C-alpha cells in the first residue's frame, strides 16, 4: 500500500519540481475518447486523478509540515532566548550539565566525540579529518533523531576575544561539512569556547595542536 502510494506520489513530485512554482496542470476531468481500449483510458484517467489528489494532499502536508517546522523552530528559538535570559538573571553561576551520548553504541559514542583539529589561526577542515567527519555523518544518518553540538576551541596564543571569533569559525566549518553532506542544519548547533576550555594546559606546540579543535557532543536523541 505504501509502495503504491509512493509510486503515485513520486512522479507527481517530479512534476511539481518541474513546474517550479507554477500552478499544477489541472487533472483531466473527462476521459479522452479512446475507442480502441476504453477500459484502459478510464483506468489511466482514474490513475491520473488519483495522482493529482495525492499530489495535492502531499502538497498540503508538506506545507503543513513546513509551517509546523517553522513554528517549532520559532518555539525553540524563543525558549532558548528565554532560558538565556533566565540564566543571566540568576544570581548563582551555573554550568552546563554534562552531556552523554548514552543510547549510542560505545564505538559510535567515541566516533561521534572524536575531535577534529586545525592549523594555527585557521578554520578549514584539514583533509586528514574528513574521514572523522564522514564517520559522524554515518552515525547521524543511522540515528535520525540525534542532534549534536560542535564546539570550536583555540590554543592559548592570540587574544581572548579574537579566539572567540576564530572558535566560532572552526565550529561553523565542521557544520558546513556535515550539512553539505546531507545533515539537516537544525540538527547541528555550534558554539565557540575560544581559548576558555583548553584540553591540555601545557605551553608547547603539542599542547597547542591538541587544543585547536572542534569537540562534538550529542544534545538530543542519543538514547
Amino acid at each position: 500500500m505504501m509502495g503504491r502510494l509512493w509510486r503515485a506520489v513520486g512522479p507527481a513530485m517530479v512534476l511539481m519540481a518541474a513546474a517550479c512554482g507554477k500552478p499544477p496542470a489541472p487533472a483531466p476531468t473527462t476521459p479522452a475518447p479512446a475507442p480502441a481500449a476504453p477500459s484502459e483510458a478510464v483506468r489511466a484517467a482514474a490513475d491520473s486523478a488519483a495522482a493529482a489528489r495525492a499530489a495535492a494532499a502531499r502538497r498540503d502536508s508538506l506545507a503543513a509540515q513546513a509551517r509546523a517546522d517553522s513554528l517549532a523552530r520559532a518555539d525553540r528559538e524563543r525558549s532558548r532566548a528565554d532560558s538565556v535570559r533566565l540564566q543571566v538573571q540568576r544570581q548563582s553561576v551555573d554550568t552546563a550539565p554534562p552531556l552523554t551520548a548514552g543510547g549510542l553504541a560505545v564505538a559510535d559514542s567515541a566516533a561521534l566525540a572524536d575531535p577534529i583539529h586545525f592549523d594555527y589561526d585557521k578554520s578549514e577542515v584539514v583533509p586528514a579529518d574528513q574521514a572523522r567527519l564522514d564517520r559522524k555523518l554515518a552515525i547521524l544518518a543511522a540515528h535520525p533523531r540525534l542532534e549534536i553540538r560542535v564546539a570550536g576551541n583555540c590554543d592559548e596564543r592570540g587574544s581572548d576575544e579574537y579566539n572567540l571569533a576564530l572558535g566560532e569559525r572552526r565550529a561553523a566549518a565542521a557544520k558546513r561539512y556535515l550539512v553539505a553532506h546531507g545533515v539537516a542544519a537544525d540538527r547541528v548547533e555550534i558554539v565557540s569556547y575560544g581559548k576558555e576550555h583548553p584540553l591540555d594546559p601545557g605551553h608547547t606546540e603539542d599542547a597547542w595542536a591538541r587544543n585547536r579543535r572542534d569537540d562534538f557532543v550529542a544534545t538530543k536523541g542519543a538514547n
Partner: protein
Amino acid sequence: MRRGLLVAVAAVIAAPAALRAQDSSVAAPGGVRVGITYTPGTRPSLAVLPVAPAATVLDSVRSILQRDLDFSDRFDIVVPPPTVAVQGGTPNYGALTALGTDLAVAVMPAPGAGQSGQVEVQLHDVRTGSLKNHLTLPLPAATGEALRLAVHRAADEVVRWATGSPGVASTTLLYVADGRLWRVDPDGEGRSSVPSAGRPALSPAWSRDGRTVAYTAFVPSGRPLVIQDFASGSRDVVPGSENGVNITPEFSPDGRTLAFAHGDENGTDIYLYDVARRCCLTRLTVGRFYDNLSPTWSPDGGRIAFISTRAGSPQLYVMSADGSGQEALARFDYGFTGQTNGPEWSPDGQAIAFHREVHGVPQIFILDLATRAVRQITGEGRNEDPTWAPDGRHLAFVSSRSGTRQLWIVDLETGRMRPIVTTGGARLPAWSPRRTFFSEAG
C-alpha cells in the same frame, strides 16, 4: 604638550631590532621603558605636609592623598619632616623653598568644624607663598570605601588645581579573573568581585557615565551580551544576542548605542544596538567567513576603529559610525606584521592603543592618528588588552612580566610602570570614568 613628547619619542624606536636592543639595555628601575623617554626633574616638586598627631583619620586622609598624587605621575613627591615644614599650623614657605619644592598640600581639620570630623585640603604655591585653593571633605561617619572615594575625589581636584586637568584617582578598573568580574582601584585598593552572570564573564565595558557595564556572559544556553546596572547589579540581555557568540561591547560616547560583534556560522560582524530605545540592531560589516570585531568609538562618536581578518590575520581598521568608508588604519605587511587585537581609542581622540604580536608575543602599541605612526610601549613578557584612563596619559594592561598575569599601569609621559596586585590571572581590564556621578555598589 603631550603630543610633542610623543613625537620626540617616536623617533627613538625606528626599527624593531633597535627596539629590542633598547628593551634589554635601557631597563630602568621598576620596569622596561620601550619607546618612552623618562624625563626626571621636569615635574613640579610637591610637598605633602605631615599631620600631627599621626594615626588619626587626618593621617589616613594624608596618606591616601599622598599616594594618589604620586600615582598621578605629575609631581615629584616630597615628604618633609614636621619640624621643618609647618610653623604655627601653616606651611613654612621659606623652609619648603629651601627644600626646592614648588607646591605643598596640607591636610587639617576644617575651620569651625568642631567635632563634625570635616577635613580641609589645601594646595599652597610655595614660590609665591600663597594658598592656591582648598576644599572641605565631607567625611562625617565616612569609613573604608566611602572615605577612600572622597579622598580620591579630593586628590583629583588637587591635580586639577596644580596642572589644569584632573587626576584619575577616583576611578576603578573592572577585569576578569577566574572567569568572574572583579574591580580594583588604580591605587591597588578596593579589590572585590562584582556579581555577574555567566562563567566566564568576558570583555567588560563601561558606559561613559559609569552607571552601566556590558559584558559577554557564558551561560549554558548561549553567549549573550549582558547590560548591567553597576550599582544595583540588575541586568538584562541585549535582544538578538541570545544566539551565536556576542563579544567585545563598547558604548558610544553619548551612551545611546552599544557597538559589539555578533558571530554565527556566517562569520563575526559588528552591530549597533540602540540602548536608548532598547531595540534595533544595525549591522555595520558583512564578513562572510572572515571576522570583524572589537569596535571602539572615536570620542566624537563619528568613527569606529575595529579589528578585521579580511586580509588574513587580524589587523586594525576604521570606518564611519554608519559602516561606510572602511579602510586599514595601522599599516601592516601581509604575512609579517603580527596579529593585532584589543584596540581602544584614547579619550582625547588622538591615539589608539592595541596589542600586536611581536615574534608571537603580544606587546602594547599606540597608533598616533595624526601621523599613523605606531610605537611600541612594552617589551618584557606578554602584554595585552590596554585600556585608557580618563586622563588619556595612563594605560592599564595585562602583563606576565612578573611571572603571573597581573594588571599594570603605565604613565605614557614619564614611562613609569607599576603593578596593581591581583591574584588569579587578571585579564581584559576596563578603566572606568571618574566616579563623580554614581553611588557605589555594596
